[in-house]
């Protein structure tokens, strides 16, 4: 198992690439891009190899367990001839993660180590991060070619890749924290890549500072777990102790709540999500890599990594509601409804990302660990594809504004259009694309897992979210690729044109992934129970940790089964959304004023004429309502309410800083100091009056002093 055991080399290669680009990038013929691409290619190959070896590692572990079990059964069979049924049950086996560890520092008798903990989720993330990073590197050579900070850009991409790879294979929470902050730094630098304009640097600052707020939670959580686990940062140890019950429930609960804050900020959960749409100020490939596929899922990954803590802390297996699932659910709906009113294609995708991250958090909240990670996996593919597709379009029309400068792009950019369409379909969850399978697992999880009553409410939320997703993505497709070209897109002299190969190839790859990745975890239950063992649930099989540090050791932990009703239901809901939107945008006429009264009349007039009377009605009411007051209200609340709170927190901090400085520091503290100085000087001035210059007054003082002192001492003593 050379590759998994030496996987720590992968981030090191990326880090080396960062250093090389930083110092030599500008002198290279391609300004450093070639270094980054080479490094990431190596990383990707190594990640692939790691995956392959890991698969065989898991299989051999399973095989060994099978052999052992068979031997045991053989022994058992000797005693009792009853040995039926057990063969069909899945075999329990443990998979040793690949580990490496070095001492980082020590204090007293506690040693802090840095190292590698590589198991299923890590291996999976290796693949995702290196693949998308590589594609983004290639894509960027075209997309931001000629930029004045081209080299810097690639340097930071490399640094980001290194940090993200380090994060996913962190051995300790401290290391996780370190990489967590480093990816934040890269995010900051890349959002602010075009820092000449203030909005961009504002967005960068907002991202960093909002994440810092979450980091307070992370720091506290990590510290609480450190002491709860007898002074250890080791993730395996912490999980094991949490699952064994060696850590009190209270500590786990407080730690989980603290860590929640970090999840909320990093993974864009309500109410700390506001930085994510703003982060679209960065270059589009960055948005694809960092703000869609990898960094923003760090929060999800962290929960998955410390799942033992969360599982016990929030009693996920036995409850029917907990902070994770609630926050996730709010985010699903909130993000989706906000996506609806955006004019900027990237913001649509950003809110969509927020919403999808909500799914993942929700899935973790209901206990569907595999579903969450699987959705993370598929989402990374199609969302990156969407972002890159949006970038491709924007590259051609020099704008992200769908309503002003796009429309009818399918004619100019057919290839981009097709890939975008595929990814959209995957996102909406159309059978048999990737999103269908992963979203379905989430919904099944919500339906089947949990304590009494389960998390049914959240399944409904998930369905509503799916509906909304279909609506806004269809709208997005329409505004971008259909209708009449507007603005730059209509510029006859410089008509939009299809992008070059370096942009298209990543799009092909990602859309291809959007098609096939769904099959990675083909269910083998329900109507699909006939699917072959070697092809079903591969994702779960290979990537779900199997060992004492994962909640699967608990009885309350379970996997949802494929439910054909949910699958059908969600598909129908998705299709309904699409058709409603289709009806509204493609078939609808005029300025869509059905929300106003006279337009209602007009609609009534056409009831008989139009075949789609009902459609019109429903579209008008539902879409109109969602698109209109609800979404706008939500957006207003978002911008003025939540974002307002965030911004005014900043303003308040500055104001209180001014107050403290001017009034308290300079006004009170410093004044006291200076006043004692001038008081000394003042009393000196007053005392000088003793010194009148008249010798007889001096004499009077002398005699009086003598008399008084003598008098006092005579009387007192």
């Amino acid at each position, binding site marked *: 198992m050379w590759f998994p055991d030496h996987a720590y080399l992968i981030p090191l290669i990326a880090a080396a690439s960062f250093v090389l680009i930083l110092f030599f990038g500008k002198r290279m013929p391609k300004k450093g891009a070639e270094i980054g691409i080479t490094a990431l290619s190596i990383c990707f190959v190594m990640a692939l190899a790691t995956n392959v070896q890991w698969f065989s590692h898991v299989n051999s572990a399973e095989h060994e367990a099978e052999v052992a079990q068979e031997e045991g059964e053989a022994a058992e069979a000797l005693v009792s001839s009853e040995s039926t049924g057990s063969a069909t049950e899945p075999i329990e086996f443990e998979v040793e993660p690949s580990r490496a560890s070095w001492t980082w520092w020590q204090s007293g008798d506690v040693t802090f180590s840095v190292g590698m903990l590589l198991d299923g989720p890590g291996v999976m993330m290796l693949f995702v991060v290196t693949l998308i990073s590589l594609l983004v590197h290639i894509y960027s050579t075209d997309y931001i070619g000629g930029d004045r900070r081209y080299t810097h850009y690639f340097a930071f991409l490399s640094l980001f890749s290194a940090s993200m790879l380090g994060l996913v294979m962190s051995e300790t929470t401290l290391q996780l924290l370190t990489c967590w902050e480093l990816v934040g730094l890269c995010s900051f630098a890349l959002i602010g890549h075009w820092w000449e304009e203030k909005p961009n640097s504002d967005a960068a600052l907002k991202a960093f500072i909002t994440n810092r707020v979450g980091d307070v939670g992370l720091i506290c959580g990590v510290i609480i777990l450190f002491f709860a686990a007898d002074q250890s940062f080791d993730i395996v140890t912490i999980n094991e102790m949490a699952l064994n019950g060696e850590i009190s429930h209270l500590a786990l609960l407080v730690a989980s709540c603290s860590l929640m804050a970090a999840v909320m900020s990093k993974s864009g959960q309500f109410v700390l999500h506001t930085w994510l749409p703003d982060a679209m100020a960065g270059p589009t490939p960055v948005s694809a890599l960092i703000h869609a596929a990898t960094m923003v899922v760090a929060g999800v990954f962290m929960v998955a990594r410390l799942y033992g803590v969360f599982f016990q802390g929030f009693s996920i297996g036995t409850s029917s509601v907990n902070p994770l699932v609630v926050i996730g659910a709010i985010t699903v709906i909130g993000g989706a409804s906000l996506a609806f009113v955006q004019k900027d294609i990237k913001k649509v995708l950003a809110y969509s990302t927020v919403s999808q991250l909500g799914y993942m958090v929700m899935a973790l909240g209901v206990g569907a660990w595999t579903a969450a990670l699987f959705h993370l996996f598929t989402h990374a593919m199609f969302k990156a594809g969407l972002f890159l597709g949006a970038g491709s379009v924007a590259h051609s029309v020099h704008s992200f504004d769908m309503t002003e400068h796009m429309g009818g792009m399918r004619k100019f950019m057919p290839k981009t259009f097709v890939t975008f369409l595929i990814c959209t379909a995957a996102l909406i969850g159309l059978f048999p694309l990737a999103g269908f399978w992963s979203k379905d697992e989430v919904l099944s999880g919500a339906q089947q897992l949990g304590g009494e009553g389960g998390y049914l409410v959240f399944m409904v939320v998930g369905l509503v979210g799916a509906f909304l997703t279909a609506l806004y993505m269809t709208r997005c497709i329409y505004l971008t690729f259909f209708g009449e070209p507007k603005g730059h897109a209509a510029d006859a002299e410089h008509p939009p044109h299809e992008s070059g190969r370096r942009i298209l190839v990543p799009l092909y790859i990602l859309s291809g992934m959007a098609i096939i990745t769904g099959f990675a975890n083909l269910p083998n239950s329900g109507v699909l129970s006939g699917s072959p063992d070697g092809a079903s649930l591969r994702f779960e099989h290979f990537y779900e940790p199997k060992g004492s540090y994962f909640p699967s050791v608990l009885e309350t932990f379970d996997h949802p089964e494929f439910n054909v009703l949910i699958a059908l239901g969600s598909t129908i809901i998705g299709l309904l959304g699409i058709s409603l939107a289709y009806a509204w945008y493609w078939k609808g006429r005029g300025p869509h004023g059905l929300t106003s009264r006279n337009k209602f009349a007009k609609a009534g007039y056409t009831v008989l004429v139009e075949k789609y009377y009902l459609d019109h009605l429903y579209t008008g009411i539902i879409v109109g309502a969602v698109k209109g007051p609800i979404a706008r209200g939500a957006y207003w609340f978002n911008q003025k309410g939540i974002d307002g709170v965030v911004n005014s927190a900043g303003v308040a901090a500055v104001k209180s800083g001014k107050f403290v400085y001017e009034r308290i520091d300079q006004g009170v503290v410093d004044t006291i100091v200076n006043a004692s100085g001038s008081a000394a000087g003042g009393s000196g001035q007053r005392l000088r*009056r003793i*010194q*009148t*210059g*008249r*010798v*007889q007054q001096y*004499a009077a003082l002398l*005699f009086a002093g003598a008399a008084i002192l003598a008098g006092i001492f005579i009387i007192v003593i």
Partner: protein
Amino acid sequence: MDDLLLNQFLLLGAVLFCIGVYGVLARRNAVLVLMSIELILNAVNINLIAFGAFWGSITGSVFALFVIAIAAAEVGVGLAIVLLIYRNRRSVDLDDVAEMKG
């Protein structure tokens, strides 16, 4: 010398001392101030002599002699300084000698 007599001498000394102090503080004329000083010193002398007699030792008297001699020297110096002041200012009013203060 008995206690009663000693007390009378001491009282005289004290009164003289106070008169001297009053003179020192109240007179403007430097020469009068010098004379008041002599009163104080003589009050001391009376004390010394009285105590000397009380103890029957000559030390008190000797001390008094030293005081007298030194007082003479002191007053000499004092008068010289007053003379200097008079030369420069044409006045021996001590209230005028207050250029330096504060």
